[in-house]
């Protein structure tokens, strides 16, 4: 057997030639292999479905000022860096529509389904159907059983706001009578605002443990901020007021209420969300702006719904490549102020 495999002896010149050819092959093979692999890697594209919560114009999401369009746009921009073709669906906050979207996606043979619907019961059915069809699922903000979840953390966001206010009060008004106000649609369970309010309350007590906190529930109507806050202001003359607003619209309304009452020197406000109503481009001159550092709206806690695509597609691509993804990934909420708004949201829109 050994004899059969033995290469016949070659003359010296020919042997050298064969040696050079072999060497060339040795050098070429990895290159050829690499090229083939690269071509394969470049050719492999995935189809990913993204079913948005709702894209109804003007409808805001999660108790913030962001709309479904903001979320969708973030996916459109973020997908540019991935070998992914996105298929967009609008769940219209409707269980029937959500299930119909899933059927369409299964028929299209998508590789992954990103589900954004705030209806746990429907999400169970969505998960079952997709699993049955062999399609992976990634959920946003409301779980789909056994699927990785990307979610905001309302309690942490609230706590960041409360701590910022508490630190502000401790630094500027130490020894002066100070109250905290938790302001907004406080019973909005669907938007998990109660968690946000709880976090804000905890945060307010961080540096001012004895602070009295007054909940002011607007029932979701920002127009109620002025009259409700006016009552609080009137009943607390000569008192400093730290306002933890549950959304940016309420924060801006609170500012107007304090101005109307002539109590600007007594107030500090932190909002939640950081949509374009409070920050803007180079020339927008919005409330949170480097040229507006003296505002009593000290800042707002970022929810980044306009970055969801950038946060969620990296998880999606890892799932598609068979890598492990944590069962729960949480938004890294941050306090955005005049000092960091242009770092966090560099303006590019030059209108």
């Amino acid at each position, binding site marked *: 057997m050994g004899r059969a495999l033995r290469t016949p002896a070659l003359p010296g010149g020919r042997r050298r030639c064969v040696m050079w050819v072999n060497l060339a092959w040795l050098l070429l093979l990895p290159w050829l292999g690499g090229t083939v692999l690269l071509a394969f890697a470049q050719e492999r594209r995935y189809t990913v479905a993204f079913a948005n919560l709702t894209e109804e114009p003007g409808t805001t999401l999660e108790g913030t000022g962001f709309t479904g369009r903001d979320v969708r746009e973030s996916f459109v921009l973020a997908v*540019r860096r991935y070998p992914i073709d996105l298929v967009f669906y609008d769940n219209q906050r409707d269980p029937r529509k959500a299930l119909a979207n899933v059927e369409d996606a299964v028929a299209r043979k998508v590789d992954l389904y990103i589900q954004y619907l705030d209806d746990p019961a429907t999400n169970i059915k969505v998960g079952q159907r997709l699993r049955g069809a062999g399609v992976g699922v990634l959920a946003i903000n409301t779980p789909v059983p056994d699927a990785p979840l990307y979610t905001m953390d309302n309690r942490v966001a609230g706590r960041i706001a409360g701590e910022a206010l508490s630190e502000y009060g401790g630094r500027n008004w130490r020894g002066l009578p100070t109250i905290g106000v938790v302001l907004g649609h406080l019973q909005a369970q669907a938007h998990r605002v109660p968690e946000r309010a709880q976090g804000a309350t905890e945060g307010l007590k961080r540096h001012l443990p004895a602070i009295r906190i007054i909940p002011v529930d607007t029932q979701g109507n920002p127009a109620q901020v002025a009259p409700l806050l006016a009552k609080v202001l009137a009943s607390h003359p000569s008192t400093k007021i730290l306002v933890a607003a549950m959304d940016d619209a309420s924060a801006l309304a609170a500012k107007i209420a304090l101005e109307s009452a002539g109590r600007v020197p007594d107030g500090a406000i932190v909002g939640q969300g950081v949509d374009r109503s409070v920050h803007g481009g180079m020339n927008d001159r919005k409330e949170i702006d480097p040229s507006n550092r003296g505002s009593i709206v000290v800042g707002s806690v970022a929810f980044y719904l306009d970055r969801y695509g950038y946060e969620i597609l990296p998880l999606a691509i890892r799932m598609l490549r068979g890598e492990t993804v944590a069962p729960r990934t949480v938004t890294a909420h941050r306090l955005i102020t005049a000092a960091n708004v242009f770092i966090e949201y560099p303006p*590019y829109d030059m209108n």
Partner: protein
Amino acid sequence: MRRKSLFVIAVMLTSLIASVPAAMAQTDCKTIVPASPWGPNDQTGATNRVTPAVTKAAAAEIKDGKVVVMSYPLTDGIPLFGTRFTKTILTATTLAPGGALGENQLTYMEDTWLSQSHVGTHLDGMGHIGRKDCYYNQTPMGKFITQNNMTKLGLEHLKSFATRGVLVDMVKVYQAANKFKGNSACKKPCLEKGTVITKADIEAGLKMYNVTLREGDILIIHTGWGNLFEQFPAQNAVYNSGEPGIGKEAGNWLVSQKIVAVGSDTWGVEVIPGEDPKEAFIVHNILLTDAGIHIIENVRTDLMAAEADQTKRATFFFSMTVPKAVGLTGNFVAIEGIR
């Protein structure tokens, strides 16, 4: 004797403390911006590459003397970036009755042009873009600015731009690759804003006309987006809302190609919105701050793109004069492509 020693120590300490900010600024810039390949005193950047040999070789592109306009009209109402403005005021006092001068009744007119320098078809100079206060060639710019201008990296230090221009037609590239996505506001095909032009796209554009970039070239990218500029003021808001353009990978590749400048029919040459929402005009940093490669914005590219399409030749002699504007960060320019 002891008092003298104390005095000397005090002087030394004062000198040390006084020198700390400058030393720190320089040290910081050395970690933030690369050194120029043309030495620590270089204020010229990539136009160092335009040698007599490069200009002579570029002159070979002039075959029949045809001149193609590559700049847009400079007039009130064109799209402008941010708070920029233009305002022209004509002085024509001698045209008033009795205003003419002498027996020959001489009259004259002149203009007042109020504007920022980065308007219309314009060149970004070395002092335009930095990281923190660190600019091209590790220049701690905080030490080199006055109320009026820069005392380093001004346009007066630039050499000639008399070199070869190379056009890549991204509209054709994207159409050929069956990935073209346009914007309905454009009256001619244009790439949609946010389209990231990659190294592979540029290479495809070069291959389309069988061109290879060589050191000292100026690359001009036709995206079609300039059609919105041409419609001024009707589409100014759309024009300014974003743009197709090169991404980071393409920017880095262009640096490796040792070109002199890159221009496009957009207001910022790079893709907007950018690839990472937390980065601001990062390709400007890559090209200008790090490599001294100029950016030319609002270049009129459609005529040269049509010319290239017709003749199957995408190279030309790049004719552009930049005023010796002392201490300026940029200036509007007129460009002609000569064939």
